[in-house]
């Protein structure tokens, strides 16, 4: 469908970003879908970050949640299933002036794109990845997903899923990602805060957001929704104030502590599991390589460089 015509003029350069400027097509998600809240939180995050609008890139793979970029008025797009991360790695490395956000679901991220997730994480490309996990394939109408729990009845497992699901947090922490967090679509402020920290992290930041599919997996995350009788347990981060209670708080720089949180029984905790602030990004490593190489060539212009190379091939 065509975008509705907007008569209002675009904001002037430098004007604060508003939700109005960021709104694009009306979302095609089902009424009640958790993804609406993620979208609303993302608008807020962008307002707070207030980057120049043209410098923001929103990209996605395939799935319900991957429709995201159509609903955000920034440069962006919709790539093929499972491959949004390597695409976004190209955007990030190609242009250091851009702010790159990737959205996707559990099938896109943990199943078909699982290998890309691991490698994009270990290389530490500077970008933010939000996985909207509903534990079911929604766009294709209810098949078992890599995060569906054992016993989940789907069209591909009518008797209940029999395969062990992935543990997203353990996988993400293990992948080498330098910022790993978890949030919940029913907790808008928590989402905003978590996504903001992720966006500000200098490196590969990934946030898993439990986002309910009301159509195909209703009540999947009730155990972490207080108004449904569940518990939303947040992670208190160490303040470094030396107090006795601070000793009990979580140290996000500790891999060991992160794995401990990741291994908690369902529904587990929410917040920042792990952050390595010292890791050098792929972007920086490549920039260093270029700087070092350019120094050796004394910043010779391209033509002179290639001419010198050909002279050696005579």
């Amino acid at each position, binding site marked *: 469908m*065509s975008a509705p015509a*907007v008569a209002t003029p675009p904001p002037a350069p430098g004007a604060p970003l508003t939700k109005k400027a960021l709104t694009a097509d009306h979302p095609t998600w089902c009424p009640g879908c958790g993804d609406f809240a993620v979208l609303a939180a993302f608008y807020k995050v962008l307002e707070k970050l207030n980057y120049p609008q043209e410098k923001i890139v929103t990209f996605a793979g395939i799935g319900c949640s991957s429709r995201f970029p*159509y609903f955000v008025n920034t440069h962006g797009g919709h790539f*093929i299933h499972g491959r949004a991360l*390597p695409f976004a*790695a190209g955007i990030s490395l190609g*242009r250091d002036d851009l702010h790159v956000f990737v959205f996707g679901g559990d099938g896109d991220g943990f199943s078909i794109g699982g290998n890309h997730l691991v490698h994009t994480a270990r290389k530490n490309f500077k970008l933010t990845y939000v996985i909207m996990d509903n534990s079911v394939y929604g766009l294709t109408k209810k098949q078992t997903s890599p995060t569906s729990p054992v016993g989940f009845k789907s069209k591909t497992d009518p008797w209940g899923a029999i395969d062990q699901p992935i543990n997203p947090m353990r996988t993400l922490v293990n992948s080498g990602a330098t910022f790993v967090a978890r949030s919940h679509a029913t907790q808008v402020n928590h989402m905003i805060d978590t996504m903001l920290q992720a966006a500000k992290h200098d490196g590969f930041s990934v946030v898993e957001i439990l986002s309910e599919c009301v159509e195909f997996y209703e009540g999947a995350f009730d155990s972490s929704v207080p108004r449904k009788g569940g518990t939303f347990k947040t992670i208190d981060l160490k303040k470094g104030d030396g107090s006795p209670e601070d000793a009990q708080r979580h140290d996000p720089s500790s891999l060991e502590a992160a794995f401990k949180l990741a291994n908690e029984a369902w529904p587990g905790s929410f917040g920042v599991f792990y952050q390595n602030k010292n890791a050098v990004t792929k972007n920086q490593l490549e920039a260093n390589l270029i700087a070092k*190489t350019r120094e050796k060539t004394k910043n010779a212009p391209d033509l002179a460089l290639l001419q010198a190379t*050909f002279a050696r091939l005579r």
Partner: protein
Amino acid sequence: MVSPNSPEQSGGARPGQQPRSLSDVVIRLAGNSQDGIQSIGGFLARLAGRSDQDVMTYMTIPSTISGGPSIFQVRMGNGDILSAGDRADMLVAFYQHSYDAHIGSLRPGGILIYDSDHVAPPAGDNRFTSVAVPITTGTVEAVGGTSKDKGKNIFVLGLLARIFDLDVAKLTGLVKERFGGKNEDIVRNAMLAFDAGYAWPQNNIRDLFYRFDAVHAAAETTGRPQITIDGNTAMAYGLLAAGVRHGAGYPITPWSSIMEILRTELPKYGGVFVQCEDEIASISTAIGFSYTGQLAITGSSGPGLSLKMEALGWATMAEMPLIVINVQRGGPSTGMPTNVEQSDLMQAIYGSHGDTPRVVLAPKNVEDCFYIALEAARIARTYSTPVIILTDQGLSSRIEVFAEPDLAKVMVAPKLDLSERPATFKPYPLDAITQHAPPGARIGSGKYPTVTGLEHDEHGHPTGSPVLHQKMTAKRREKYKALAATLPAPELFGDESGEALIVTWGGCYGPAREALGRIRKAGFKAGHLHLRHIHPLPLGLEKTFAKYHRVVVAELNDEGMYGYGQLTMMLRAAYANPAIVSVTKTDGLTFKVSEIVAGVARHIESQALSATVGAASQSTLATR
């Protein structure tokens, strides 16, 4: 060859002996891959380049990790050297297995040089001039110490320098350049081995003395220095000249050397090449680079191209510029990874899903690998489209000499256009060719574009409209027709009408041109048409085809179930001309000239032409 006449460098070493004159020669060196066979060939090729001679090489490397039989064939001489030669004038056999496997490739009357430490040819074989040289002990005695027989290759180089009266100063200069970066012992040992080989002449090797004819002051000489490189190197530097500064890839033979060169070279130009986790990530990352407004390159060989197909479909749908290099090898599957084949044409044109038009180009020789990269970049940018370059294993590894490109003239500076786009900007206008606004560019309307693999409207928003899908499919098709209308007529050699037109693409150019020469010499009217732009094809080919009794497409792939090679099928489908027929083969080797001549003879049903094939001329080295 510019043979210097100074006595210390040239024939002065052979008092009273007059060299036989020679216009070109084919030398096949057969040994094991660890013997440095390739480097002898490399030195000879480079020497030819620096002496204004033409040269073509052909090599095989075993696909095993280390060791195994290996050959290097070098053909050097004056005039246009178009193929590596059907049969060798000289065979240098390092081992008995080398002798056994390659003696059949030596012309009757040719020269066999063999390492008498390892090879024992059957007694009484008078077909060749056989020369026994104890290459191994000769090298060991010359170099001494612990290096064992390392340096046999340089010993043989010395031997050849003597036999062909090569320019010793230039040749030893090249050897020193090559080993110069290493420690002095290596250079000294190499020179000891070279001198020992050069000084060897004993027994009947003393009778072998040739000199290349002086190079004619050719009118077509560009006056530019000659360079000596292989096809993959030419391709990589062509990309740099084309202003391509971003790329991503995954290792696979024989594509890898392009990515190795780009990984090493690009940082010098402020660019970056990423080694990705797999083929899919590679093309995805490359398209990501292109999306930022900077044309990028990815590449692979056959199976890898298959893995890239889904993303390639996206690039057609989203209309993203991209260069994809496919260094073809024997297939399917892992197939014959170190052999040549042209069996990925259909994959390149029709692979992926849905209607996915794209551009397919193929270089005709090593020099053209450089220029085809420039052409690919031009088309990718102008038409915002993926462009596949189909090169092949033969071109990738063979060394040729060509005039250094005029870089000041051809080099393209990378350009990133982040200017604000007017309020009327649309990423997918129905009435114009897409030119994307990369991120970073403000959009006057305040509405930012999405690029997508879903069918979309002019703004890039998803649509399920049947009318729009039809219109957008047509929009994506029409730009290729617009491109086709601008393409130059392909090169046509020989007669403009006649019995047969040979049609080729890719690396078959050289042998087909030589075949044309033989066919016309035998009294037949014939032409040769070579295609660089394969998809879309240049306009008007049907008119050219109509002027010949038979249109014989020579290509290195299987005749398939219907009896036609892949390009042949396409041309028959496009022009419905039953005169279009095939000469195909899948032995993993480049065409011999005689194979094309024989194929044409078969199709024009000419006994007379067939008869010329058997009568291979005697070796130019025949001692008579």
